[in-house]
């Protein structure tokens, strides 16, 4: 078969195309199936050969072939290099094309054009790819930033909301107070702090699931109320909720809200087929706000809530600053007590007890004192109650008893040394270790038990139970004197009085005074009657609160054995009492 110049046979063409395709496939970086690459390359080869003999000749066909090579995935540098070599070395011979100047010229023009088209396509492709990957990076970046913002928003939400009810928490509530302040710098706000009464019982008896569902139901009711009244609602802890009211004009505003809230919560809840009657207590505060007042306001509402709860269930209380200040001071004092005990800030002052007949010193009453570093000397009425409330009473009592016994033992070396009278706080009578403590303290100090007197307040002892009587008997058994303090201020169970192992009655100070609106004779007769009651019981009788000589005489005349009061001496440190002991008289 003799081919026309410029046009090889189909077989010759496909041989060339197969070789070209194989070369390209091996030079290509992106893999391609053999059959597919042969199909593509055969088509390109046909167009190349057609272009060679086309009239008029147009070299731009080569450009398009170069472009299509790249578009079909033959884009590696080697693809171009090998293509050029293959065309130059094999095309004319394989297709038996004339080796004349015209053909050679056309061929080199086509190859030049093919290389240009290839390079241009590769360049475009790279630019497109660079754009694509940049867009992808920007997209990814934007997505990461969005995710970060969402995360921050979610963290912010978690940090400011209660997970169970979705209500704002304490943090957001305080922020809302600040926001209210920013909106109206001179405005007033009110808080109603609500707490479900006996919620813990629901959790323990019905389970936390029921408890949680109740809290959700409560949250929903309060949310409804808040929406209706234009309030904000938050959940603090467990079963504590807060309603925030801005732009109030007075306490009545929050009281109305508290009433409505307590009413709403008092309607029974139906949880899991159970009807749960619930009551709540509320603490209220309403005042002008200043910057940073949020936490303070909340504390005020919670304080008022505690006052309300102290009154029972279903109550509300409005916060009062004076009461709170007193509360805080009392709390600070009680918190300082353990340290004060360690530092030895608790001591005793001694007040003379004097025989009314010969005015000799018969005893001293030991009175507790706290040498407070800030508040100076505090008397027992300021701290004994706190000690009882904080569980420190036993420790404090033992400490003071030891001081009293040691001091009493020091005075014992003088003849007719006074007995030391120590106040015993009522709860200590129920302390099973009391008798042992006292016996040990007496033993260690060396004080003669007959020189120790324990003063017990009238209403603490009279008509008491069998254990108390046994304790008193055991104490009397040690040889210790027992006195009834403040006699006549309680309503004594006289029937019991005679059964107790007592030594002395201390008449309350009010007997020393002459009531101005009553005839003197009647008062004196009454006084004599009381004193003779003491005598009948075989007790000595001491009169407290003697401020004048006239009172001293009057009480002596009424039959009192001894007396105590400013007239005979103020409570004083032990070193001031010692000279009196030495002299035997104040």
């Amino acid at each position: 078969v003799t081919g026309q110049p410029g046009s090889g046979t189909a077989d010759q063409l496909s041989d060339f195309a197969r070789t070209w395709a194989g070369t390209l496939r091996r030079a290509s970086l992106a893999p391609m199936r053999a059959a597919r690459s042969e199909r593509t390359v055969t088509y390109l080869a046909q167009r190349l050969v057609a272009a060679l003999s086309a009239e008029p000749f147009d070299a731009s066909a080569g450009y398009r072939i170069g472009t299509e090579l790249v578009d079909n995935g033959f884009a590696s540098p080697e693809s171009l290099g090998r293509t050029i070599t293959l065309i130059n070395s094999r095309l004319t011979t394989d297709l038996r094309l004339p080796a004349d100047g015209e053909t050679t010229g056309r061929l080199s023009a086509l190859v030049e054009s093919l290389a240009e088209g290839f390079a241009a396509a590769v360049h475009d492709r790279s630019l497109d790819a660079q754009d694509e990957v940049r867009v992808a990076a920007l997209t990814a970046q934007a997505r990461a930033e969005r995710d970060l913002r969402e995360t921050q928003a979610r963290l912010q939400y978690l940090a400011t909301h209660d997970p169970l009810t979705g209500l704002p928490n304490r943090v957001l509530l305080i922020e809302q107070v600040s926001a209210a302040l920013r909106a109206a710098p001179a405005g007033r706000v009110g808080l109603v702090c609500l707490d479900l009464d006996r919620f813990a019982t629901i959790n323990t008896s019905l389970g936390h699931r029921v408890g949680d569902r109740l809290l959700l139901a409560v949250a929903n009711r309060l949310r409804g109320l808040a929406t209706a009244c234009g309030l904000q609602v938050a959940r603090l802890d467990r079963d504590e909720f807060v309603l925030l009211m801005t732009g109030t004009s007075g306490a009545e505003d929050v009281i109305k809200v508290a009433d409505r809230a307590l009413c709403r919560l008092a309607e029974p809840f139906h949880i899991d087929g159970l009807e749960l009657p619930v009551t709540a207590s509320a603490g209220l505060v309403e005042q002008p706000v200043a910057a940073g007042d949020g936490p303070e306001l909340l504390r005020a509402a919670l304080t008022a809530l505690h006052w309300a709860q102290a009154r029972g269930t279903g109550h509300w209380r409005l916060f009062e600053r004076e009461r709170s200040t007193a509360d805080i001071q009392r709390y600070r004092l009680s918190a300082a007590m353990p340290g004060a005990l360690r530092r030895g800030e608790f001591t005793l002052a001694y007040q003379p007890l004097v025989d009314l007949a010969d005015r000799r010193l018969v005893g001293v009453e030991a009175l507790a004192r706290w040498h407070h570093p800030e508040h100076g000397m505090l008397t027992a009425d300021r701290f004994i109650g706190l000690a009882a409330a904080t569980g420190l009473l036993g420790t404090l009592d033992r400490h003071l008893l030891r001081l009293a016994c040691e001091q009493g033992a020091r005075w014992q070396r003088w003849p007719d040394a006074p007995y030391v009278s120590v106040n015993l706080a009522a709860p200590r009578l129920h302390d099973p270790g009391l008798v042992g403590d006292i016996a040990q303290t007496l033993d260690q100090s060396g004080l003669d038990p007959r020189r120790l007197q324990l003063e017990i307040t009238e209403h603490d002892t009279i008509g008491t139970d069998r254990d108390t009587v046994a304790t008193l008997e055991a104490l009397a058994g040690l040889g210790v004197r027992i006195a009834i303090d403040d006699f006549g201020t309680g309503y004594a169970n006289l029937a019991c009085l005679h059964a107790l192992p007592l030594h002395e009655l201390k008449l309350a100070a009010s007997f020393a005074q002459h009531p101005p609106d009553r005839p003197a004779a009647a008062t004196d007769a009454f006084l004599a009657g009381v004193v003779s009651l003491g005598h009948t019981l075989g007790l000595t009788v001491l009169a407290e609160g003697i401020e004048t000589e006239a009172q001293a005489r009057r009480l002596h005349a009424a039959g009192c054995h001894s007396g105590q009061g400013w007239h005979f001496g103020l409570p004083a440190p032990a070193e001031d009492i010692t000279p009196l002991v030495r002299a035997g008289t104040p």
Partner: protein
Amino acid sequence: VQRPEWAPEGIDLTRPSVARAYDYWLGGSHNFAVDREFARKIIEMMPDVRLMARANRAFLHRAVWFMLGSGIRQFLDIGSGIPTVGNVHEIGQEADPEARVVYVDIDPIAVAHSEQILVGNDRATVIEEDLRHPEAILGHPRTRALLDIQQPIGLLLVSVLHAIPDSDDPVGLVRRLCAALQPGSYVAISHVTADSRPAEMSQAQQLSRQTTTPGTVRSKGQVEQFFSGLELVEPGVVWSPQWRPESPDDVGEHPERMGFYVGVGRKA
């Protein structure tokens, strides 16, 4: 403080990505200067790394063709990386327009890029997930929407398991993935090794530490472990050009220089 699991990762464009370096080795331009710098360092050490990348890519294609020939019409390609010419969905959908592909990658840029390419293709999708979370991949809503897990699936783990250190139990991860597949499913694996060219490979491994996915080379025995519990398709675990070549010429004289072990397993 430990970052919560749902907090997003940032995009770090200062560290090279092996996926984008791989694109560069394959002649692609979907990469950044930092990637090319890393890729060129590897080329300096191993000038034929481009051929290795190509041979690995060619194995992926042959494995997909093989699976298509075995009736597989849905593919899960984990560690799909930067999409280059001849992606799995292109091959699959050329054979059968109904073929479905889910691409999975850990790199947010690769994922965003894949999304661009897949716009308008409702039978292929991409999810951003980590091979370390097989259940999250299989349970992802887009995976479930596209793949019928009750039918055999072609699982592609091509050039990805070496990004999982032993401490993350890669064998266990493959086992968990395969456990979810129906009998008749296939798993294709390719993995970098230092069995040949140990010096260069360990140097390359060192270099990979600066990338976002440092590599671990594994021996032939270790690669075979990934197929435990599966039937290994002939010719087993071999050098990448040796796995069912289209023509004997494609294998070349030194297939071991291609640095990848490859294999396909079938779930019985």
